[in-house]
């Protein structure tokens, strides 16, 4: 029991994921600044932002909203992100618990933060938040199918087992999934799916600053917004780690493998940042078409190639 709490709260849970995710957030902002020939924020900036929102700022509740849900949504978002993070990292880092990494459970846990953002936005009673929430729902509908198909494709490639330990074992012996043509074809939709899950440009229409003023998060301030920031930091670690597990032979915490593990995560985040900095924001129907038509087509081609054994 105490051990489980340690896993959840300290390592590899809340504390570790928050700190590492904060670092990745700084990395993202620094790379963005470098792309735009700016100097960029200092290393500790994400922690300053989080602590300022948590300790200094006042929390305001909307007058016309459902207050309970408004307050509960960020807490549950952090909870969902942390549980997903723990369940992804535990099997990958070689902790022997009863859980061996059921991909379906992880898939559903990863959907919790987005759903909570929607509930929080709708319960705030702000019309712009409602617009953001409706866009987020449409975005979820478009990328979740592609994401599920990608996960199913990886399962198909590694011997029809939905356990993460088996998946890692297969990659250990048979080479990483991304090392084949079908693996690369699965990796491209996966990257765009996590881009949409993280709400980064080109898929940030749910929180577009310039048109709907942060959309889903417009009414959040103080502690609630700090928790939303924290859940974003945790997701920024969790989703690249999940991608590393699915495609790149997972993470290993011993010897020289530490370097490779860190480079894998940083590489995925770098890819996300570069996509974010070289694309404009899509309209919601463009995003739906992008996932439903083109990304699903790529996944289907990958399936055919898997069936042919390429």
């Amino acid at each position, binding site marked *: 029991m105490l051990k489980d709490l340690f896993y959840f709260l300290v390592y590899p849970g809340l504390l570790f994921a928050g700190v590492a995710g904060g670092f990745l957030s700084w990395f993202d*902002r620094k790379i963005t*600044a470098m792309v*735009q*020939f*700016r*100097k*960029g*924020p*200092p290393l*500790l*900036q994400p922690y*300053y*932002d989080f*602590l*300022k929102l948590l*300790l*200094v*700022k*006042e*929390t*305001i509740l909307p007058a016309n909203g459902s207050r309970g849900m408004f307050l509960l949504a960020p807490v549950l978002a952090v909870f969902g992100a942390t549980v997903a993070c723990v369940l992804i990292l535990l099997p990958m880092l070689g902790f022997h618990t009863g859980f061996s990494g059921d991909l379906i459970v992880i898939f559903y846990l990863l959907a919790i933060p987005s759903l909570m953002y929607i509930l929080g936005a709708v319960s705030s009673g702000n019309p712009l938040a409602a617009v953001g929430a409706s866009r987020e729902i449409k975005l979820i509908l478009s990328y979740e199918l592609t994401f599920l198909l990608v996960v199913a494709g990886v399962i198909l490639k590694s011997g029809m087992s939905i356990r993460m330990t088996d998946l890692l074992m297969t990659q250990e012996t048979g080479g990483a999934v991304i090392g084949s043509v079908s693996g690369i074809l699965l990796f491209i939709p996966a990257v765009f799916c996590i881009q949409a899950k993280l709400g980064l440009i080109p898929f940030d229409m749910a929180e577009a*600053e*310039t048109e709907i*003023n*942060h959309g889903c*998060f*417009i*009414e*959040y*301030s*103080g502690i609630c*917004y700090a928790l939303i920031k924290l859940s974003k930091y945790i997701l920024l670690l969790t989703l690249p780690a999940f991608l590393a597990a699915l495609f790149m032979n997972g993470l290993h915490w011993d010897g020289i493998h530490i370097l490779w593990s860190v480079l894998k995560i940083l590489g995925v985040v770098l890819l996300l940042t570069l996509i974010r900095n070289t694309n404009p924001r899509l309209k919601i129907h463009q995003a739906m078409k992008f996932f439903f038509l083109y990304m699903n087509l790529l996944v289907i081609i990958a399936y055919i190639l898997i069936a042919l054994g390429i």
Partner: protein
Amino acid sequence: MAFKDFIFRKSLWLFHFGGASCNNCDIEILDCLTPRYDVERFGMLLVGSIRHADVLLVNGSINHKDKERLLELYRQAPKPILVVAIGACGCTGGIFAGGYPFAGPVDQIIPVDAYIPGCPPKPEAILSGIVQLIEKKKTEKAHA
């Protein structure tokens, strides 16, 4: 308390309110975010919602309609919030001060922490004003 002050100074998020402005100050404020001046290196971000803001930048002359909106924004902002009046119009009313739609300079409507005069102030002047605001927070803490 000192720790809270330190964090607050390190991460000031800006919200921009333009009154009946001629748009010059708005452009100069946006200039501060461009690669040449880059206020993000001080941890500052331009945010779209007043609920996330730590600094309220006000520019332009404030007429009677703007006054209501400015008061509403100030009431909705999570405290502590700093207010910066930018440009001659924001500080004193400038050439609009005697006009009939004019509803008083910003500091007669809400408390102002820093004034950045100029028509429009250069981005360097805005940056220097922001740095002085941060320094002011520091000395206030030292006196308290």
